[in-house]
């Protein structure tokens, strides 16, 4: 099975089940909200795709000449230009492009033996997911735990410390932090590998069913590979996760502080409920609602960070692919990659909004 299809299946089946639940059991306003949100996603994706199309055609230079350089003969250039449809009028190119996007056909790369961009991305998406999922979990974990901690100890030393941390870590360039970690933990201390997904001698031992090496090594009981993958994940996950944790920490802190001042919290205290239970079972739950919204908004930043993290740590995901194709001036691969990124962000945002509407019954459209 195509890795991209597998990934969409993994995400798509639960999403379809959730939608079915909403449309069968949900209230009328919820159904209307979800339906409207889905319908709005379509023009959003189309606008993004159109922007990508236009920007790549507005920038100066001929993509074919750029990719082939001085060695490309006029005949080869002309053939490639025809194959890419670049000799067609712009509106025909645009129509063809949109049609292809709707069928998830992102065209063929100009380099890499002109393989379909969807295949190229499909092979790399699992690696990106294997990076951004734990990084998101780490960011969220740090944000929720230490944000709540800071809120409870408001205006104490630890609160100031965490606030300082959140600003400092958010302001840090991701590639700089990555390089720092590589030098510190990889080169000087020798605790972790400096890059890659798995130790070179173990790479060929993993049976790549999903191409998410952590999952594959568990599926096939390859524990040596599992340990190596986990070992290799530490630095890139830390880098990306820490950068994102600052925002979550600040948002959690401020929301927990506000929630702790609500009347129902005072009532809970009056009933003699322990402070820890009030904080974590009552205040944090309510404070998490805006945090969930932020997860959707952070996906774009997460993918942007993944591009740099993957390059720094030689992580063979979609981000590194995009950087490599930009370097190779592979016009179609860049176009396809950006559309895929946009699609990814739009779908995650949609999912987050739907989850938000389920969690917060006040949401109406």
């Amino acid at each position, binding site marked *: 099975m195509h890795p991209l299809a597998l990934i969409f299946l993994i995400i798509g089946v639960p999403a379809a089940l959730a939608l079915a639940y909403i449309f069968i059991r949900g209230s009328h306003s919820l159904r209307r909200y979800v339906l409207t949100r889905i319908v709005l996603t379509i023009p959003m994706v189309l606008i993004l795709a159109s922007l990508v199309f236009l920007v790549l055609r507005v920038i100066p230079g001929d993509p074919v000449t750029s990719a082939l350089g001085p060695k490309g003969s006029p005949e080869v250039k002309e053939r490639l230009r025809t194959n890419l449809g670049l000799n067609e009028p712009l509106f025909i190119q645009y129509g063809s492009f949109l049609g292809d996007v709707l069928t998830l056909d992102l065209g063929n790369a100009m380099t890499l033996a002109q393989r379909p961009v969807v295949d190229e991305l499909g092979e790399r998406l699992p690696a990106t997911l294997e990076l951004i999922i734990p990084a998101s979990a780490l960011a969220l974990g740090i944000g929720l735990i230490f944000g709540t901690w800071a809120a409870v100890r408001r205006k104490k030393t630890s609160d100031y410390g965490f606030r300082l941390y959140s600003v400092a870590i958010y302001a840090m360039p991701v590639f700089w932090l990555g390089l720092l970690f590589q030098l510190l933990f990889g080169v000087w201390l020798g605790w972790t590998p400096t890059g890659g997904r798995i130790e070179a001698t173990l790479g060929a031992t993993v049976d790549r069913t999903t191409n998410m090496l952590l999952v594959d090594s568990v599926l096939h009981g390859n524990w040596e590979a599992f340990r190596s993958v986990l070992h290799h994940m530490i630095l890139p996950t830390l880098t990306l996760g820490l950068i994102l944790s600052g925002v979550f920490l600040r948002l959690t802190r401020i929301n927990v502080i506000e929630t702790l001042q609500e009347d129902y919290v005072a009532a809970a205290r009056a009933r003699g409920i322990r402070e820890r239970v009030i904080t974590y079972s009552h205040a944090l739950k309510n404070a998490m609602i805006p945090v969930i919204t932020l997860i959707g908004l952070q996906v774009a930043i997460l993918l942007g960070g993944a591009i740099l993290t993957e*390059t720094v740590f030689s992580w063979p995901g979609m981000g590194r692919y995009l950087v490599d194709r930009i370097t190779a001036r592979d016009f179609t691969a860049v176009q396809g990659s950006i559309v895929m990124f946009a699609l990814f962000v739009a779908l995650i945002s949609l999912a987050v909004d739907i989850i938000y509407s389920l969690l917060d019954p006040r949401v109406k459209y």
Partner: protein
Amino acid sequence: MRRPYKWLVPLFALALVAAACGDDDDTTPTATTAAPATTAAPAQTTAAPTTAAPVTTEAPAGVTLIIGTTDSISGLDGADAYAVHDWELLKNIGEGLLRWEPGSGDKLVTGAAAGFGEFSADGLSYTIALKPGLVFGDGTPLTAQSYADQINDRLLVLEGPGGVGPALGQPYVESVEALDDVTIKFNLTETWGFFEQLLAGAPYIPTNPTQFTAAELNNFPDAPIYGNGPWYIESYVVDEQTVLKPNPTYQGDSPAQVEQVIVRYFGSPQSMAEAVQTGEIDVAWRILGPDLISQLTGVSGLNVERINAGPIRYFIVNHSLPPTDDPNVRKAIAYAIDRDEISDRVFQGAVDPLFSPIPPGFLGANDVYDDVYAAPDVGAATAALAASGYTPDAPLDLTLAYPPEHYGGTVADTMQVMKEQLEATGAVNVDLVAQEWSTYIGAVIGGADYPVSFLGWFYDYPDPDNYLNPFIVNGGLGTMVTDPDTGEGIDATSQELVDKLIQAASTSDPSTREALYGEIQALHAELVVTLPLWVEAEHVVYRDGVSGDDAFGSLVTLNIGPTIEFNYNTLSAS
């Protein structure tokens, strides 16, 4: 409330700690880890029975060498692959009829051929014999007929995005015939004196017909990939790694010395430099910038070695546009440019000055530009400019064009240094023009925009012809020393240059060619066709304990010579 999955939390934390404390990173320099059992078993192919008992070669058990690179795989079909790393892999899993001796830039030796071939009396055909009984790693026989089919049906017909057939096949070879089981006859389009050099290139390496069929290109075949060379590709993942194992049926004279070579692909040179420092890889090969080379030099346990060949950088000097249509202006530029200063100020000495269009190590290469111009010679530059009426009061306005992003971040710095050098004559005002690559290269080749423009070059076949011909014939990529339509020289000296170039290309005798290339270089310098600037030297960094084969040259660079070919089979570890 029951929380059935809460045990997962400490388990996950434990796994993280265990991984972090694990000792699976091998920091020994030569990575003597035992190769793990691999899941990819050699494929059962539908190959015809072998015609000869394969010679089994054995490599020392348990030794794995890991080579890092910032290159990546772009395609592995010899009829289409056109990238440096693709050719490197193809030359390690396959062995051409002829090949370059490791470490050498001008010594061809036999590979799959029993001996050197012969040109016909008219020079229009070349006949060569295979060693008898050759087989690919999976047992498929390599015969003269299968090789002829490969060239006729694939290289000369299939046209992929790499454009190898139109560039390195069709212009030179009309067809190939199998005269018997082992004898191959190449019918050439013209008399090509450098045909043996071309034959040693990756497109002419025999490929296994069970994987590379006449029907279509197969740039990403399923592993294992067997050729007739010292290695086979056991598995590969693009952008991650390629695992090579010794070919069990290799019948050549230079078998693999270690049990396994793994090529690891890096996203950034910095990351690769760190990996060689920590011992995650044993060899870092292509491409480390001058800053990293300087950083790694002197690190204990590491050897940083330079190979003075490979990509060259030069100015295209346009002979049909003012002011460089004036020979005095061209000569003034040649007098004024101080290559040593560029190397020192911009590259911290990591590049070598280049004084000929032919880089060092190749047939006939000399230092003609140093002999003629002995640059920097500001006095001579000023005198040449004065001869054409350019003085401090009436200075020459000169435009130098360059692509700021295409050749790395150092280009803008080098252009600034050269601007200062030219302006030091007091009679030149330089205008630096930075242009986006695709617009730039079209303008350079078109020859209508820039009098002087900066370019880089890397060979298609390691022969002087490939460093001269493209810059002279048919407009010469913007030098305009010849008419782009008629191909004739723009004056008598240019025509003499073209004639000698054709003569050298159609001569196969090395000493005759060498003499001709000496004359061509002298004419080149007289005209200043291009202005050679520097060799963008390659560097190989390896850990103590890794070594090449002392039977070949360039031992200190792991037998990587001017051709920039890296033969993994000469590597060993102690």
